[in-house]
């Protein structure tokens, strides 16, 4: 116990002080892409109630778009998750079915308080669940059962079996429920009418001749089924046959049937027009011609029925009673930036209309339209696409104007002395001018700060110190690099089809770009979806713009778009048919631009942009490898840059491929630096690291054998450098690979706990690769491998390693925990060379932490203190200009950004540095020395007189 506390003292000195909360970090909370939206106008605050793809139920304020309450349920990433959550609500409560029909929960509508839950099943429901609410009971149809649950405490009231179905619908009917179900492509519809006590009043099978729809909608007592260009309506309570509704030509396709809240009404959208259906009269009224994007109904307090329609970012509202257009063709936003609308909800309408428009990329825009206005104003928007991130890169901001001016000055090679002198003078004048401007601005800002806060001296000093980096808080500043390069631009791709650039100082969106319809991520061999970003040129070159390439799938083809990351302008666009590998070539062509290489399945590759001949001549050999997903055959290739062909160099089979799942293939980022080439032993000898840049870590988990295999493979020679096998291992497995070590976490069946294992590769006590590292050169001696494993008392959702500029600081392993924290483990703790026992020499040398099986989990090491972040899917780290500081972005349902300093802030003054004290001491010393000098002079004079 004493030792444990001692260890905490050693490493746990990075906790945040209370006044640092929110200083370096920010959190953004999201809810995900909504699947069901309802408007709640009861109570003081109007709000939107939503169930989302991320299994979240939330209420958003209609005025601000902020989350009033949010209930995060099971993580969708963990297990099979086919059915979106659905809910039904009455005045006070809402009843949600989530986790693919596994769980029913009841929430209070006003504040989201949890009222009760019922586990419906431990498996996924075979059909999408349906839910209805009536009086004090909530009815769920899932797992071919209808279960009524009390709204007060979620106790089961009654349960009945229904016929086997693959679609179901339920709705309240005369103090009971009407339940409809059926099997697609089967001409039977089962109808049940159950009263509040669970007695089946009606139980019949309607057999229909042509009712085999793809989609079914229940609207009042009418069941609507449609496929291709046929629409049928069936009165479930009458005995009659289905009716065909004649709204659709043979040429048209039905896109969607929209259920209205008013019984007996629905809308149908086709490729050619939009119509409102009056089902009681079996009558359709065409509202508009041309393909619309979304349609929605709204009933005001007086019972007047309106229909809102969105067509290419233009809103139209019809009054169904008066049969006239209320709002005509109101445009909103910038259509070039926005994705097509997929859903519209009318928040309120009277003199002022409120709409919530949801785009294909899950952006929500809340619009307010005046009755006479020509254009709608966007009151708030939310980027829910950021819950499905395809990848993140952090980019340096461009050099500031003055930094660039200095660069230009030195790049001008003028022979004329006078001309360069004049140039010098002009640029210095320019710098002076800029400095004056900046100082005035900062003085003004300081005055503002002093006015706003009755702040202490240290606060003012801090604001002066931070003024350089917090310039983002004053909007309209150009994007430019700060002194320590802490401010970066984060380029984020969303699997919903958008690219975002976020400012890392506050997470605000700098620009966004919608990629187009049907955009999907590229599927990787280890089963992830990614929209990778490649940094072709950084902002280090003042006379060239930075450039990134983004690769994504659209309509079965792979698209690569080349952009300037600072403003989102597209530079080029390429489409390739098949892309097995996409990567950056390690050397630059013209204009400092790294080319993108796209390897196809036919052992050919293309390079964008193509490299000039002189670069090809001097290019070092480039290797890559491929894994055949059928038999696990790995093939190594060398690129022949002249003929654009792959030359096979080696083949290797991954062991037990058929019965294993590939966890990851993890190389090392080419920008990673290793500052220290060895580890110092207690006898002061050096164990040299085996830092092989071509090393790849491959992790395979046997499905039946539950054996975890980690293989370290040289991608150039195909040689297995090291392999480790662990029996009795279960998922989740996470692996990180860095410098000369690999850390992986797994669930140990034997110990029934999560463990983290580390192994490190060393060359031994003699260094072999001094100046250049070549994989072809055989190792003089066998690799020295050190390993250790540790108990981690929490689950692990994601793992990452901190990155610093030179790689000299300690590394930290960042672990996302399932309960919403991000934990920082210093590498000194997760170290394979921790001695079993401290010897006297070790104690004398210091700096050794004896091995202890547990990794202590201290709350000070939680990066996000009390800012819980849910369902973290990935952590991105990037170096800053300060060697001590690494920037961290954790993303998932929430987004959290902060800085980590694993070795402490050794290169910057601490936040609590006592400026007042040091200033007073300095001033006192200066005054004292002046005074003493005068005294001494006086005394000397007196002595001379005496």
């Amino acid at each position: 116990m004493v030792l444990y506390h001692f260890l905490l003292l050693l490493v746990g000195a990075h906790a945040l002080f209370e006044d640092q909360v929110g200083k370096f970090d920010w959190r953004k909370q999201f809810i995900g892409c909504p699947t069901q939206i309802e408007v709640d106008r009861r109570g003081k605050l109007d709000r939107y109630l939503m169930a989302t793809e991320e299994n979240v139920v939330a209420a958003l304020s209609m005025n601000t778009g902020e989350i009033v309450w949010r209930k995060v349920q099971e993580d969708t990433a963990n297990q099979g998750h086919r059915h979106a959550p659905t809910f039904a609500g009455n005045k006070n409560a809402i009843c949600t079915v989530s986790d693919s029909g596994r769980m029913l929960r009841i929430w209070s509508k006003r504040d989201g308080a949890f009222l009760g839950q019922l586990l419906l099943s431990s498996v996924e429901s075979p059909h999408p669940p349906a839910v209805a609410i009536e009086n004090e009971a909530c009815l769920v149809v899932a797992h071919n059962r209808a279960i009524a649950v009390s709204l007060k405490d979620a106790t089961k009231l009654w349960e009945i079996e229904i016929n086997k179905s693959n679609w179901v619908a339920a709705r309240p009917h005369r103090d009971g429920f009407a339940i409809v179900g059926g099997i697609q492509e089967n001409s039977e519809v089962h109808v049940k009418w159950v009263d509040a006590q669970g007695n089946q009043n009606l139980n019949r099978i309607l057999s229909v001749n042509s009712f085999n729809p793809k989609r079914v909608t229940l609207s009042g007592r009418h069941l609507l089924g449609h496929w291709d260009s046929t629409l049928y309506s069936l009165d479930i309570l009458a005995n009659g046959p289905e009716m065909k509704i004649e709204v659709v030509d043979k040429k048209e396709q039905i896109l969607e049937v929209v259920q209205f809240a008013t019984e007996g009404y629905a809308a149908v959208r086709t490729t050619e027009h939009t119509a409102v259906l009056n089902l009681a009269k079996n009558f359709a009224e065409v509202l508009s011609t041309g393909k619309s994007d979304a349609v929605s109904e709204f009933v005001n307090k007086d019972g007047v029925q309106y229909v809102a329609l969105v067509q290419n970012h233009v809103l139209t509202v019809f009054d169904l009673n008066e049969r006239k257009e209320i709002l005509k063709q109101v445009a909103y936003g910038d259509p070039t930036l926005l994705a097509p609308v997929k859903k519209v909800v009318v928040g309120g309408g009277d003199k002022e209309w409120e709409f919530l428009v949801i785009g294909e990329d899950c952006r929500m825009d809340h619009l307010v339209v005046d009755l006479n206005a020509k254009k709608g104003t966007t009151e708030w928007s939310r980027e829910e696409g950021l819950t499905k991130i395809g990848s993140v890169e952090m980019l340096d901001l461009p050099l500031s104007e003055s930094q660039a001016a200095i660069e230009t000055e030195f790049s001008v090679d003028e022979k004329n002395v006078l001309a360069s002198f004049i140039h010098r003078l002009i640029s210095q004048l320019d710098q002076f001018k800029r400095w004056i401007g900046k100082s005035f601005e900062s003085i003004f800002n300081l005055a503002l700060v002093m006015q706003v806060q009755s702040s202490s001296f240290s606060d003012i000093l801090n604001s002066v110190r931070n003024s350089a980096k917090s310039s983002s808080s004053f909007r309209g500043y150009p994007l430019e690099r700060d002194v320590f390069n802490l401010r970066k631009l984060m380029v984020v791709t969303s699997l919903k089809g958008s690219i975002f650039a976020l400012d890392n100082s506050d997470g605000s969106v700098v620009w966004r770009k919608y990629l187009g319809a049907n955009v999907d991520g590229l599927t990787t061999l280890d089963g992830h979806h990614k929209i990778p970003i490649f940094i072709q040129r950084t902002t280090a070159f003042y006379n060239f713009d930075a450039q990134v390439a983004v690769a994504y799938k659209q309509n079965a083809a792979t698209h690569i778009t080349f952009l300037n990351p600072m403003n989102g302008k597209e530079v080029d666009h390429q489409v390739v048919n098949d892309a097995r590998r996409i990567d950056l070539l390690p050397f630059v062509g013209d204009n400092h631009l790294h080319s993108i290489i796209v390897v196809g399945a036919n052992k050919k590759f293309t390079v964008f942009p193509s490299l000039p001949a002189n670069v090809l001549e001097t290019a070092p050999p480039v290797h890559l490898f491929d894994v055949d997903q059928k038999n696990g055959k790995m093939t190594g290739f060398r690129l022949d840059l002249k003929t654009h062909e792959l030359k096979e160099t080696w083949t290797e089979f991954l062991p037990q491929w058929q019965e294993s799942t590939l966890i990851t293939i993890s190389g090392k980022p080419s920008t990673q630096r290793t500052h220290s080439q060895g580890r110092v032993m207690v006898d002061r000898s050096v164990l040299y690291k085996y830092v092989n840049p071509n090393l790849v870590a491959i992790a395979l988990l046997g499905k039946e054998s539950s054996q975890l295999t980690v293989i370290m493979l040289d991608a150039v020679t195909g040689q297995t450098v090291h392999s480790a096998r662990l029996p009795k291992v279960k998922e989740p497995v996470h692996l990180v690979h860095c410098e000369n070590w690999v850390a992986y976490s797994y669930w140990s069946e034997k110990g029934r706990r999560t463990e983290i294992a580390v192994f490190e590769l060393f060359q031994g006590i003699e260094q072999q690769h001094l100046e250049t590292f070549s994989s072809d050169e055989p190792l003089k001696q066998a690799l020295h491998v050190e390993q250790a494993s540790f108990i981690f008392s929490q689950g692990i959702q994601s793992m990452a390693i901190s990155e610093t500029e030179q790689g000299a600081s300690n590394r930290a392993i960042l672990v996302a925990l399932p309960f919403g924290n991000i934990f920082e483990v210093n590498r000194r703790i997760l170290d394979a060379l921790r001695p079993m026992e401290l010897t006297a020499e070790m104690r004398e040398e210091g700096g050794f932490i004896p091995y202890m099986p547990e990794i202590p989990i201290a709350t000070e090491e939680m990066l996000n203190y009390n800012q819980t972040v849910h369902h973290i899917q990935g952590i991105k780290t990037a170096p800053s200009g300060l060697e001590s500081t690494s920037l961290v972005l954790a993303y998932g349902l929430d987004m959290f950004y902060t800085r980590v300093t694993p070795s402490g802030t050794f290169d910057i003054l601490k936040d609590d540095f006592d400026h007042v004290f040091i200033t007073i001491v300095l001033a006192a010393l200066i005054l004292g020395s002046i005074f003493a000098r005068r005294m001494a002079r006086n005394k000397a004079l007196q002595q001379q007189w005496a």
Partner: protein
Amino acid sequence: MSLATWRLDAGTASRSARTADSQSYFPPGFSPIGQAMQQNVEAEAAADQQEHLMRKRAWDVAMGPAKSLPMNMFMMYMAGRSISIFPIMMVAMMLWRPLKTMFSVNSTFKPLQDDKTGSLILHKILFVLGNFGVVALAIYKVHSMGLLPNYDSDWLEFIPEAQRGSFSLSNGDIFI
């Protein structure tokens, strides 16, 4: 010749300085009268004894540093191996003092330089060697404190990162 070639009689000097203005430029304690009062106290019989004493004294000076070695060793032992201000100061002094004295060997032996004592070269060599001994002791102490950069580990941070001979695109994903 005696070690004391002159004698200071402050009484006579000051007296004469006060009385005779013309003599005031003589340094205090010096007076022509005092010089005149100088007595040759040597006796022919004591001359041998004097020479013997001189030689002994020269040897004492030459052996001084070597003699101080055991004491220094003990001091260094007592100082301990911990790296804190006092041991560091002691070691630094121990290193600095003999180095300084080594550069002033001639001035140390100057008073002993005489025709009668003969050549002092052997003494000087011994003196320097003794000082070297002290320096060596100090260096050993620094070494035992771990302050000497004589291990590979001390130069580890200066080893540059190896350049890449061949490149592999190993960090990218394989897409299916």
